[in-house]
């Protein structure tokens, strides 16, 4: 520090107000800087530019939901007792009075019915948790479909992916804390799933629950994870995630003046700070309104956990729904009862394929989500940095893969709601499940082809617009009696959005130095063909000239 300070003409012998002017702002800035050296940071980041687009705010929604979760969660910890000790309820809620329940359930009811504003904070906490995961996933979809995971952001994609997993873990551990009937049956299902894991299943369950289900330990253990380990991990990963966002600078959409070497937008101080800061209050306010007006997780209706009862419509919170759906859609007997059993015994050990297959399929699905950026980079071989977000239509195969993945997820979620689908659409539960089982296999394929065709059609339309202009809807009669519709040409700014995209051609296999074609290159080439066989090239200036002369 001392070696560089003289370059600023820093003279500590002079009183601050005489050294420089700047009023109170100047005085306060200097006061802080002289004790922290923060002016470096302000100089670097104070006028950092953020591009303006609604889809760039989704990650912030997740961040703000998390802040709301931390604030409301802290309030809740002051009252919640993470204990499964038996107590007798003696609170305000009539239909539970005098009932034996765990201290966890009783304290949650106490928060809801006796602490002023407690129900509000509890509901805001739960709504914020649902919004947290929902906004993370919408954010991930945005990143995926615009290719914002490409170099140099592959690692940040993985960090965001870890945050998604952590958010689900946070959600599930929190959902289970009140020890009510609904979450208790959720834990029962998890315990049953764990039991089905080969070799270690029953011991794993034994350890997690401290003996037989439900035991008296699980709520306390989940609480430690929920308020200590998981939030610490989420905070750490958010910090890394944001450091990378700053390091990489934000992506931007193609547009006039926007290049891969610049960022165009608004400066952090003051505009972005005002917008983003204001947006925090908006998100918080919306969650507050939800907490005030919409019941969430009415545990008093569910009652305390008891292994004997269960409610129709027992479902996990929505973000675990895809896992529950996988369990529901996996048939126990392939081809119906009497067919091939998905659970069998060999040498006195049991293989529960009806549990294992869903676990493996879900595992493969989420691993595929994680490694996709690396796969695409390998296929394209493109080592350049990419800071211009793709329009989804300009990468038809990627968009189609995303559509297929999203469809797969949605079918699984629908599987978790199969009973509600049946009652609300007056269908039989068996036909709903059978349709969803086939949909799980077929709908992603259909979604893939439909999305790809739509992308290609939109690209063709873009080409038409660039080459021949917009249809103006104005019909003109030519002197020869012929009617034509007048096309308005696009201006150069509009055109740039339509023509400036990356175009890849399929990889040609060439022998390497040793004159051989390695197997990996063959795989890469076939993947590359799959990705880029159907492609629409961007209009070039030569093409446009030719079109004009027509």
């Amino acid at each position: 520090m001392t070696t560089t300070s003289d370059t600023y003409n820093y003279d500590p012998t002079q009183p601050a107000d005489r050294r420089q002017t700047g009023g109170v702002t100047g005085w306060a800035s200097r006061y802080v800087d002289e004790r922290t050296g923060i002016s470096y940071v302000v100089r670097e980041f104070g006028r950092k530019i953020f591009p303006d687009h609604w889809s760039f705010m989704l990650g912030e929604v997740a961040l703000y939901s998390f802040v709301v979760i931390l604030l409301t969660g802290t309030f809740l910890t002051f009252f919640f007792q993470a204990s499964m000790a038996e107590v007798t309820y003696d609170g305000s809620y009539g239909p539970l009075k005098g009932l034996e329940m765990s201290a966890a359930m009783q304290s949650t009811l106490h928060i809801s019915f006796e602490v002023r504003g407690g129900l509000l904070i509890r509901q805001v906490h739960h709504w914020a948790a649902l919004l947290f995961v929902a906004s993370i996933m919408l954010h991930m979809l945005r990143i995926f479909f615009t290719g914002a995971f490409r170099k140099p952001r592959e690692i940040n994609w993985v960090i965001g992916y870890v945050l998604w997993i952590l958010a689900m873990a946070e959600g599930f551990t929190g959902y289970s804390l009140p020890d009510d009937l609904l979450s208790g049956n959720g834990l029962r299902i998890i315990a049953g799933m764990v039991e089905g894991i080969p070799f270690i299943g029953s011991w794993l369950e034994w350890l997690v629950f401290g003996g037989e289900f439900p035991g008296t330990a699980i709520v306390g253990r989940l609480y430690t994870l929920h308020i200590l380990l998981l939030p610490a991990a989420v905070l750490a990963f958010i910090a890394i995630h944001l450091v990378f966002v700053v390091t990489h600078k934000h992506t931007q959409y193609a547009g006039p003046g926007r290049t891969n070497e610049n960022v165009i937008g608004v400066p952090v101080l003051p505009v972005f700070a005002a917008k983003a800061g204001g947006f925090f209050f908006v998100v918080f306010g919306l969650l507050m309104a939800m907490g005030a007006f919409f019941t969430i997780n009415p545990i008093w209706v569910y009652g305390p956990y008891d292994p004997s009862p269960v409610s129709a419509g027992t479902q996990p919170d929505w973000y675990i729904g895809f896992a529950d759906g996988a369990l529901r859609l996996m048939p126990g007997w392939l081809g119906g009862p009497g067919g091939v059993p998905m659970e069998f015994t060999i040498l006195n050990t049991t293989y529960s394929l009806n549990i294992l297959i869903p676990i493996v399929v879900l595992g493969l699905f989420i691993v595929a989500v994680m490694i996709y950026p690396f796969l695409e980079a390998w296929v394209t071989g493109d080592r350049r940095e990419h800071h211009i977000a793709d329009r989804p239509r300009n990468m038809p195969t990627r968009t189609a893969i995303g559509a297929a993945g999203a469809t797969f997820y949605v079918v699984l979620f629908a599987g978790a709601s199969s009973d509600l689908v049946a009652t609300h659409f007056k269908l039989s539960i068996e036909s709903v499940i059978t349709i969803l089982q086939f949909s799980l296999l077929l709908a992603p394929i259909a979604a893939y082809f439909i999305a790809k065709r739509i992308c290609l059609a939109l690209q063709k339309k873009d080409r038409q617009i660039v080459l021949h202009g917009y249809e103006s809807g104005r019909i003109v009669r030519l002197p020869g009696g012929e009617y034509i519709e007048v096309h308005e040409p696009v201006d150069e700014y509009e055109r740039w959005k339509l023509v400036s995209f990356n175009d890849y051609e399929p990889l040609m296999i060439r022998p390497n130095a040793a004159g051989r074609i390695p197997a990996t290159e063959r795989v890469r080439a076939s993947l590359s063909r799959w990705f880029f066989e159907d492609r629409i090239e961007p209009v070039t200036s030569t093409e446009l000239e030719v079109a004009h002369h027509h």
Partner: protein
Amino acid sequence: MASNEPTDIVPADDHGTTFTDPGTAVERADAFQNPGLPPHQLRVTDKDPKAAKRAERVIVLLFYVSVIGSVFAMAAYFAFPIKPNDLGSVRLNNVFIGLGLAFALLAIGIAAIHWSKALMDDHEGIDIRHPVAGPPPVQARAVEIFRQADRESGFNRRVLIRNGMIAAIAALPFPAIFLFRDLAPAAGTPAEAYSHTLWKQGTRLTKDPTGDPILASDVTIGSVFHVIPDGLLKSDDMLEEKGKAAVLLMRLEPGDLHVSPDRKTWNYDGIVAYSKICTHVGCPVALYEQQTHHLLCPCHQSQFDITREAAVIFGPAVRPLPQLPITVDSEGYLVAQSDFHEPVGPSFWERRGDYNV
């Protein structure tokens, strides 16, 4: 690996090419040129001082709406107190504190955003991007530092030391696994625990949750009783035992039951008892349809046919629900003949295949 001069480190001068390799991307000479930023457009508030003044008034108003919201929330705290045993008061407390806070928060947010959109300077700012990687000399220096550290420590040369270190670190987490052993009780094994329930010969079937015994004559055709073993309510591990011992009791026309030869004595005059714990992942299977005699699990929709010894007819479960052999005692109350003949609930690795043979 053991050589003095590691060769697998990328030379620093490779920096340029790895950054610009476009892979299979097509770069065209006659592609369009970026036309540059379009001219800046003025907003109404830039051109019309009256509009700017109006925006200013709205923003000020919104901030004070927020103050009113906060005050309202505090007032609601007192104006709508929670009264004991009055859920209506909880509802009002919730709505009005929430309403005040929602107004307070939304108004701040909308005011700040409106301020930034309408009144703050909106000229486009431009930042120049630099490659994420350090400049070539910096990157080269970093590589050199690692190589130097390797030379000076002999990390790649003194293989025995290095491998010893890796082994030491790799061994370290294993004691932690052993520490976790006591998460579960030291005595017993899960397979043992899952294989026994509170049912034994002569245990009376009692109603859940009251614990009253059940006369065989009370179980009429079409009835379903939710059953727990006598003595469960006094058990120390009530929930754990209930989670295994819960039973569903139904009476069918004896002619409707298809009974396998070794289970001839397990029902009493058409009264059958089956474990309520699903063989899939353990939800209570309790939706009994008295005309179809089907049992449905509400969690994952497995269906069991009671007329055919609870065989699976639909859904993800594979095994039938275990049957509890029952009879009546001298007073006419229903009692168990024995425990279940197989572990109840979900399958697990140590579950044998010979329980029913």
